[in-house]
């Protein structure tokens, strides 16, 4: 026993100290929703346009009723938000699109009471995309829309008119492909990620019907998705570019003659190419369908597990309802976004001429919500898996889509009984 027990205690004390040290280190991140403190933690996805990050940090700093820390999140933001919300460690305030399952699992709080008189100032369709069961869960920040950009000079040289149908688009992409310049860029995945909606709409279909049934249980869906496959194998698509579809680099660096991207890139494209570009909606497949552009708005939301819900709500109200000047700056000073509020949209002079004006017109005439709340992540995953199989691996469109229809029906049943 001699020596042993005394050293034993000393050793144990050592162990306890080490554990204490670890514990002390554990709280060193300080911030973050779960760990208390007065700071409001706010997350954004990484906007590609220069200056946005500095701008939102500037707004946060200007808030005088509390401290706000902004986290910028490059990478797979939607996954990250989902897992942060589930883990009770997430931000207090964050931007997101609204999905019905977030409401069902009580991850976010209703912001209905923040709107007040401003309610009627928000564009109805945009506010609707942040509403579930009559309650508003996200304050729309800015409307983003996607469309097709083309180089006027290259089309002219090839003797082409801007394509009006999917077949004309395939043809144009083919004719514009020369040596090191490809005809069309739809993203490194060949458009699977962003064109699911447009492919359905161009055939007159949709994700879900208004009465919450599967909206693409139709042979036309297979035909429309088949067109993406045709493009993918036509050797006229740019694939494997360093920056993906949401960034205009491939278009402005001359790697491609046409690119699917968004209104937000217009200032950057104008800077690089001057007037040498035009914009188009995704064309119709046939007489049944219509040309379309997807639009959607990130809304500012409050985490239901936040320890300072009231402070977070007050901040959201201040930034996205009261501070019209910041919203205007956010909408138009960096990339272009359509203001979510009518009063600001009326004042948006930068969107009143050129391609930006076309974009606004597209949204009014042809716009389709890109993220309807009843369309959940699980449904989206099922659809994008089958699109991957069809478009990129050459799977059978009819069977794959049939499969997806079943999976979506299961999920609808799970959510709505």
């Amino acid at each position: 026993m001699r020596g042993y027990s005394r050293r034993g205690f000393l050793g144990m004390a050592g162990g306890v100290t080490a554990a204490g040290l670890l514990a002390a280190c554990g709280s060193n991140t300080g911030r973050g929703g779960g760990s208390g403190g007065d700071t409001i933690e706010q997350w954004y996805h990484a906007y590609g346009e220069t200056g946005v990050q500095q701008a939102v940090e500037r707004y946060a700093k200007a808030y005088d009723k509390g401290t706000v820390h902004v986290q910028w999140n490059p990478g797979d933001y939607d996954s990250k938000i989902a897992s942060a919300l589930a883990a009770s460690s997430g931000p207090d305030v964050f931007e997101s699109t609204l999905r019905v399952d977030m409401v069902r699992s009580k991850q976010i709080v209703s912001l209905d009471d923040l709107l007040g008189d401003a309610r009627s100032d928000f564009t109805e369709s945009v506010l609707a995309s942040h509403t579930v069961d009559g309650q508003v869960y996200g304050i729309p920040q800015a409307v983003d829309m996607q469309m097709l950009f083309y180089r006027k000079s290259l089309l002219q040289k090839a003797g082409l008119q801007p394509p009006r149908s999917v077949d004309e688009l395939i043809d144009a992409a083919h004719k514009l492909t020369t040596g090191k310049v490809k005809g069309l860029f739809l993203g490194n995945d060949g458009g699977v990620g962003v064109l699911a909606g447009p492919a359905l709409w161009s055939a007159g279909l949709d994700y879900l019907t208004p009465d919450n049934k599967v909206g693409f249980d139709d042979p036309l869906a297979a035909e429309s998705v088949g067109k993406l496959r045709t493009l993918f194998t036509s050797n006229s698509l740019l694939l494997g570019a360093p920056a993906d579809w949401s960034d205009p680099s491939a278009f402005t660096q001359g790697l491609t003659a046409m690119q699917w991207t968004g209104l937000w890139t217009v200032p950057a494209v104008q800077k690089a190419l001057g007037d040498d570009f035009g914009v188009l909606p995704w064309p119709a497949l046939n007489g049944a369908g219509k040309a379309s552009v997807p639009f959607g708005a990130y809304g500012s939301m409050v985490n239901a597990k936040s320890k300072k819900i009231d402070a977070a709500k007050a901040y959201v109200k201040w930034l996205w309802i009261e501070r019209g000047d910041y919203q205007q700056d956010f909408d138009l000073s960096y990339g272009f976004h359509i203001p979510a509020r009518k009063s600001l949209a009326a004042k948006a002079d930068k969107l009143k001429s050129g391609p930006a004006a076309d974009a606004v017109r597209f949204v009014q005439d042809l716009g389709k919500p890109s993220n309807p709340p009843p369309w959940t992540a699980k449904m989206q995953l099922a659809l994008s898996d089958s699109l991957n199989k069809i478009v990129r691996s050459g799977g059978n469109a009819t069977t794959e889509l049939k499969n997806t229809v079943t999976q979506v029906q299961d999920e609808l049943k799970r959510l709505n009984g």
Partner: protein
Amino acid sequence: MRLPRGSDLSGLRLQASARSAAFWLFVAPFLIGLLIFNYIPIGWSAYLSFFDAQGTVTPDTFVGLSNYADMLTGPFAQSLLTFSVFALFIVPLTFALALGLAVAVNRIRFARTFFRSVFFLPTACSYVVAAMVWKLSLFSGVRFGLANTVLDWFGQDPVAWLSNPDPPWYWVVLVTARLWLQVGFYMILFIAGLQRIPDSLYEAAFVDGAKPGWQVFRHVTFPQLRPTSIAVLLLSLIAAYQAFDEFYNLLGTARGYPDFGRPPLVYLYYLALGQTQDYGHGSAGALILALLIALVTLAQGRLLGFGRQEA
């Protein structure tokens, strides 16, 4: 109280109770942690796997075995199958290259340490960094990628290495990256094995008239490396089923992960921790994979470990 046999550390006559106190002092800190961080999660997971646990870890809808059924029939099963094929390629390739390098390096007299260090150096590199080099520089899909530049010299069109699964060129990217990262590690194992082979065996082979080169390798070196070979096979096989890092970084994008080249762990990551937050299916998948790896380990140990030495 009688002392157990084998406690022959003379000069020590502790009572059994004091000895068990000492035992626990040494073992308990680790053991408690092991129970909390290894056994509890597995148990909890087993529980979740029988429930509809979407977006919650305290579910209340019991679904029986349906999560398992879904996982065994859906894309997860496909992924397990794909990665069994992946293992079938990567394990022998790793084995052959590592052994080849080890034999080559072990036999030279000049610059031995240099070559050994060079081949071993990629072990210092993380899978993330390797993925970066492979994705943005070596196998970039556009004209400035090195592989496409080389193709261009031969008049070939650039290949979209990671974007186009048909033909599945992305496997070239994934397999070369993994080989580069892990071959050096296994080479070191083989070198250690080679150095344990007694000289006398080679001398005996020489006396018996064995020709240098293949014959000696076939009849002396390779049989002697048996324990090392088994370790290398086992480790690289298990590593193949655990693939995550370079796949996630090479094929993952800001919009998620494609349905091809999707390792089991990547599938589980997106299923359970991604947008779907499906802990029920995710847990079922994790347990299936764990069981599979445990079985492979046991089977391979049985097949190779207890066999007789040949030659």
